[in-house]
């Protein structure tokens, strides 16, 4: 009975870790992308910093635009990751400030990722509109 219990605990921990790795990769990839001026105006983002608290607002804006390149599932993963980080931040806020600080930084990355997704969706919608107007004319 001990071996299956150990395997269960280790497997669940590793499962969580692999999922977190995946989300961190997405967030890190998002951070490399520069936001366009138009998205900065729409979202009110100035400079390079986005607060993690902006994530729900940015996600709602993203949902107003049509999906591009199947990015919906990635945003879903980031949404779950953001919720997980919020729990982590609350849990470790008093006990381990460095862990809470890391969670805050990652949540900010999630918000930035949502802004990058919004940018991509707006750009894609513009391209479609432009090609449609060219076809009509």
């Amino acid at each position: 009975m001990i071996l299956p219990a150990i395997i269960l605990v280790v497997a669940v921990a590793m499962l969580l870790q692999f999922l977190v790795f995946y989300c961190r990769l997405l967030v890190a990839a998002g951070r490399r992308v520069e936001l366009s001026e138009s998205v900065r105006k729409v979202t009110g983002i100035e400079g390079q910093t986005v607060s993690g608290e902006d994530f729900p607002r940015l996600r709602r804006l993203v949902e107003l635009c049509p999906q591009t390149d199947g990015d919906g599932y990635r945003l879903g993963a980031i949404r779950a990751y953001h919720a997980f980080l919020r729990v982590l931040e609350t849990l470790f806020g008093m006990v381990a400030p460095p862990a809470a600080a890391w969670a805050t930084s990652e949540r900010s990355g999630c918000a930035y990722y949502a802004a990058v997704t919004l940018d991509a969706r707006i750009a894609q919608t513009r391209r479609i509109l432009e090609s449609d107007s060219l076809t009509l004319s």
Partner: protein
Amino acid sequence: MLGPIDYLVWFLGFALEISVVVCSVAEGRFSRYLPLNLYMLGAAVATAGDFYFVEHYGLTSLAYRYFYYYSESLLIILLYFSIFSLYQHVFAEMQASKQIRAVSLILLLGTACVSFLIVRQSQDHLTGRFVVELSQNLYFVGLVLTYVLWGAVMKLRVTRTRVIQLALSLGVFFSAYSATYALRNLFPGFEIAQKILPPLVALWLPLTWAFTLWRVPEEARLETARLAATPAR
């Protein structure tokens, strides 16, 4: 009795397994990901075999159980080869393929020997709990191997998105299966771990691999190095 949802999941699994191979062939990279494709072909054959045994002998028959668990054990061994092929992709620049082949051969022989010894000692109860235990251990070995592979990906700062996604999918698959089998071992009467989780987890690997091969270009790159210390913005 199997319901329409069971058959749907079954068919979906088969279609996804075949689509992984079709994606590889269409892209002309069947041999580049040969072990992965062989595993998917094997999984498709096993899925079709499962269907045949259920239709002809019934879900509770001994013939189906034997086919299911033994084909699964063989598929896990094929999956080990897939992991080692990913190791070769990761260590390609270090030209360590000989060492990787040697290690994989030792591990394969070791697993075969241990399995043989376990089977020989448990000849009188080869069904039921024993096979669940064996599968649980085989999946756990796979999980450890994938974890080490992921460590190498991070350490060597591999940037190829495909390799990263294939490895991560394997990690999630092995950890989810290990956890499911451990649950089955701990709570034999637990319906969710017995009937609902295994077919859903089985869909994960063909689904994510098909997506990776279909949507992620071979040239795509991700910066794993950023994970080591992600700067706050």
